[in-house]
């Protein structure tokens, strides 16, 4: 059994105009020593999906179906107290724009010790010693535990976010768009740090991003999301070498690179569908170059093909 198993998860937002299927029947798993990348455009439901793993779903959003099994227990049926213990110790999350997720009126040391004190019975000195150690783990001098968030640059704040998340030795780490909004050099430094941490702490990670290169540099497994569904799941190398779903393929081709010869520009026509009235059949068919008649009528099921999962009528 894998460390985390998400089965047929459905999260709908109930609005005045009808249900928005933000996450529609997705399944994936993360095992120990695995790094899963969840990639998709904005609004495809990737953040909603991991919020459910942390039990953050709030009205008008509701989990209408599915299971999230973490270490053999279903997170969705846990009591509030069990969820509190799970967060931070079992699964920890670094939020998108951690720069703004920090409390501006607390020193970073206080913010780390706060997490430690929530979960463990330790005295003050020990908590602070751990806080300093956490900062050093992410490459910040321990003496800066007394600094406030505004005294750090964007990349360093993101590091502090990771220090807080890993303070109680979680068994699974979720990073939501960790490098979005950071400069390339800072971005690279942060990815190096994440790779180091993963090896040092043997920490399985779920990466949420819209950036293919981030996934390429960190993840072993990738799930491509489009309009609330996972359209392809494969290991990173085979996805990049030979993407099966037309969306994955176009996404990779649309990504410019500065290495190697300058290739042709590719753009995907149109825009992602609104999820209130998604198209009939495959959600991608209005933008798909290989759309067939069947794509406009029925939704493709997830099929296994050369060790990967893909939801497309091209594969039977």
């Amino acid at each position, binding site marked *: 059994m894998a460390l985390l198993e998400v089965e047929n998860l459905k999260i709908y937002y109930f609005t005045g105009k009808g249900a928005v299927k933000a996450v529609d029947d997705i399944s994936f798993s993360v095992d120990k020593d695995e790094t899963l990348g969840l990639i998709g*455009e*904005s609004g495809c439901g990737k953040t909603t999906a991991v919020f459910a793993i942390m039990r953050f779903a709030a009205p008008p959003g509701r989990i209408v179906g599915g299971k999230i099994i973490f270490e053999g227990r279903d997170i969705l049926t846990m009591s509030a107290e069990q969820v509190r213990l799970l967060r931070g110790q079992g699964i920890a999350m670094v939020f998108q724009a951690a720069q703004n997720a920090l409390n501006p009126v607390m020193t970073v040391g206080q913010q780390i010790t706060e997490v430690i004190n929530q979960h463990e019975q330790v005295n003050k000195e020990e908590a602070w010693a751990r806080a300093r150690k956490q900062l050093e783990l992410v490459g910040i001098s321990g003496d800066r535990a007394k600094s406030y968030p505004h005294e750090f*640059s*964007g*990349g*360093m704040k993101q590091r502090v976010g990771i220090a807080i998340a890993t303070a109680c030795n979680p068994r699974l780490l979720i990073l939501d768009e960790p490098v979005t909004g950071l*400069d*390339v*050099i*800072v*971005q*690279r*430094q942060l*990815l*190096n740090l994440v790779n180091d941490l993963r090896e040092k702490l043997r920490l399985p990670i779920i990466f949420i991003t*819209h*950036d*293919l*290169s*981030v*996934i*390429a*540099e960190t*993840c072993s497994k990738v799930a491509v999301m489009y309009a609330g569904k996972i359209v392809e799941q494969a290991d*990173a*190398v085979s996805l*990049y*070498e030979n993407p099966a779903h037309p969306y994955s393929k*176009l*996404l*990779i081709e*649309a*990504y*410019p*690179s*500065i*290495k190697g010869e*300058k290739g042709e*520009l*590719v*753009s*995907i*026509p149109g*825009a*992602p569908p609104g999820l209130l009235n998604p198209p009939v059949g495959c959600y991608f068919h209005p933008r798909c170059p290989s759309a067939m008649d069947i794509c406009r009528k029925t939704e493709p099921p997830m099929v296994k093909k050369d060790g990967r999962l893909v939801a497309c009528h091209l594969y039977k």
Partner: protein
Amino acid sequence: MNDQALLKVENLKTYFRVRKNIIRTIFSREVEYVRAVDDVSFNVGEGDILGIVGESGCGKSTMGRTILRLIEPTAGKIYYEDIDITSLKKKEMRKMRRKMQMIFQDPHGSLNPRRTVADILRQSVRIHRLADGKEEENAMIKTALEEVGLKPAEEFWGRYPILLSGGQRQRVGVGRILILQPKLVVADEPISMLDVSVRMGVIELLAHLREKFGISLIYITHDLATARYICDRIAIMYLGKIVEIAPTEDLLKKPFHPYAKALIAAAPVPDPRVEMEELPIIGYVPLIPSDVYTSCRFYPRCPYADKECREQDPPLVEVGPAHYVACVKAK
């Protein structure tokens, strides 16, 4: 570069005054400045696309805005078709604006949410009094919308920005300047807030405008990879200075300045089989840049820095055809 430069920027400086301490500001004459743009010179030829690449805080947006005089320069000259626009009065400048336009970063924030697409474009036409009568106005709007790929125009005509996707909104942003037939456009991170799948569409649109109308473009970005696809030349900025400027492929294949090398090495590669390179750079952008105003801006982070780098602020020198570098080691 064409000999006929459309835009010439000479020793442009934009400083912002900082107030450190109210008491000290009152009682002492000492004034501190942040040098957002510090002594920058370059040309843009007709139909040229120049990329300005740098990290946040390097002054690239300030420079873009200063060129259009949305921010007043502290010193230096900006020539547009040999007219020094820094000396123009407000009224005269307003006439020039038709020819010099800007595309903003945030397509959600830069369109008036209470105007329909057609009215947003109509406003541009009316401000510059380009049309005689409503019919001509409507015809112009229709052409512009179709030119930027919002086809059929009727479908988008009466829509409000909130009903458009990010890519479509950015196309409206392009359409409202295209209708003015500008000759110079400053595009400030036009795609950084768009989804990956629609980014290239907007880049293609900008390239198409250059091909069809000969519009010169200053493309401001932090992303070397997209700059590669559209720019003829790229200038790399660091803390208010251009540290290297060269034709695009030259710069990417043979970068000279250590900062340019670091930026290129750090550029993400969308391929899991490629090994990540070591980063030839130390630490972070200094939080107090005034410490490096008299030296090479980059020396505290440069792995090759020595005594000479601390003592002088290197000028741009030519190291190859149209390839200029500001580094002591470039001689």
